[in-house]
């Protein structure tokens, strides 16, 4: 489905944010869901690419969604070169969302992983949940949307591996510090929602199980279809294989068999 680009803004050397119209024919997206995007009609690259919904808003009768993307290959390069008024080809929204229930939410993002978590933060604030965010990246230019998170009222800490912004270190160090400093009682009320590179998610998972907090991880697998047709995006869970695009991309850390 062709959707019109309303805005496309460069945020740093390799990150951009795009706002697109959200046609009435599409269901309203939930935080954690994603869309499948295609920028060319040629057959290389062949597949659509998944992008988490970064934000969503309605104004009057019309709606728009935002995507936050890191420019890494042909599709994201094409996206970066798309001007407002042009269109992109998008299907969705697909997949399961993050968990909006729970007393206290900790959002943990690595690099472009902040994309779906910003939308989650917005919905959690609308639902008047208690929340905080921890955003990490290798360097300053990979840490996105910190001000925007604070603006919508989400307390946000930052870590970079090179120390160029916030605390020097991994975002999971922030998480470890946070979990360490609180009581067992309070930990029961916490839901960690995380998105980022696999190594980071594994550490989040490890911390969550060590401190006995719930964790929901948004996984990144290769996806040919994004909607359950190809059975290619399999994730190993304790009860067998699951499709990342349909049962995920958000999984309980507990069910994953890593």
């Amino acid at each position: 489905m062709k959707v019109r680009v309303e805005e496309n803004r460069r945020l740093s050397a390799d990150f951009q944010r795009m706002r697109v119209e959200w046609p009435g024919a599409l269901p309203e997206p939930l935080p954690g869901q994603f869309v499948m995007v295609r920028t060319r009609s040629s057959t290389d690259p062949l597949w659509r690419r998944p992008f988490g919904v970064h934000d969503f808003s309605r104004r009057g009768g019309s709606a728009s969604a935002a995507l936050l993307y890191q420019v890494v290959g042909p599709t994201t390069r094409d996206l970066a070169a798309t001007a407002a008024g042009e269109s992109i080809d998008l299907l969705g929204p697909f997949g399961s969302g993050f968990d909006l229930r729970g007393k206290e939410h900790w959002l943990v993002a690595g690099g472009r992983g902040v994309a779906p978590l910003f939308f989650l933060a917005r919905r959690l604030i609308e639902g008047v949940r208690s929340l905080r965010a921890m955003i990490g990246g290798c360097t300053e230019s990979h840490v996105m949307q910190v001000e925007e998170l604070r603006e919508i009222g989400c307390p946000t800490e930052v870590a970079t591996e090179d120390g160029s912004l916030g605390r020097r270190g991994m975002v999971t160090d922030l998480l470890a510090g946070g979990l360490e400093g609180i009581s067992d009682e309070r930990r029961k009320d916490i839901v960690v929602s995380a998105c980022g590179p696999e190594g980071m998610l594994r550490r989040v998972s490890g911390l969550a199980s060590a401190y006995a907090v719930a964790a929901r991880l948004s996984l990144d697998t290769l996806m040919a279809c994004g909607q359950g047709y190809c059975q290619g995006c399999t994730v190993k869970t304790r009860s067998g294989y699951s499709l990342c695009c349909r049962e995920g991309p958000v999984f309980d850390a507990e069910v994953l068999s890593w």
Partner: protein
Amino acid sequence: MVVPADLTARLGPLTLPNPVMLASGTCAYGLEMEPYGDLDGIGAIVVKGLSLERSEGNPPPRIVETPSGMLNSIGLENIGVEAFLRDKLPLLREKGARVIVNIYGQTLDEYRRLAEILGGAEGICALEVNISCPNVKKGGLLFGQDGRETRRVVEAVREKTARPLLVKLTPNVTDVGEIARAAVDGGADALTLINTLQGMAVDVESRRPALANVLGGLSGPAIRPVAVRCLWQARRAVPVPLIGVGGIHGARDALEFIIAGASAVQLGTVNFIYPGRWREVVEGIEGYLQRHGMTSLSQLVGSLEI
């Protein structure tokens, strides 16, 4: 005034209102395609390959993108024939879908039992026998890579069912014509060509195979020239109707197969990218017939001038 063209696809004992099917393994059990158009508009839906028992399939990673194609090693994951009949088929029938069931076994006996079970079920318009499966008795070789084994599988299924029987051939052979003849000798009503080409990719950073299974099946536009060639070779080898599949991305591609001799076509990998594409292909074929002054699909089938 434009005269509507007759798009009826004639596949021996099987007749379909139009020649555009969805290929096995690329539309799950068909129901998943409903958001992109009413299922009864599709020529036929070939559901994911079914085995006797539910099968988990191969470990991940199972797919990788290649130039204008993809490799998959899904490993024929499926819910099993009984669950299909119980949970999926009734819904498909309700929607008016024409259902073709793709089956695979690891022994002749498994093929026989599948044919028996499905032979009794209502609301299935044909069986498609997938012979691109490892022949347990013959090591790495597939049933479909050997003429005699091919014939034996098809005979085994044929004995157990009177339903229209399609046999789906692998391109990974020296002589497609030979396998086509064996399938027809075994009792096939029509042949489907082609299944995926065997391929492999390496992740150079980790120095591991890109697929956990090492080998996978190549599909998508990259293989279309090979698929058209196989179809044409089969056409010269056997007199039965043929179904073309491999890399069809749009109506123009479907027409290549039809002109080369296909009575119908299947869309596979394209469903992942443009799930509603089948409708445009149907319309594109109709438009072509009208533009070229033809009133029925049969005038176009095999019209290639050498």
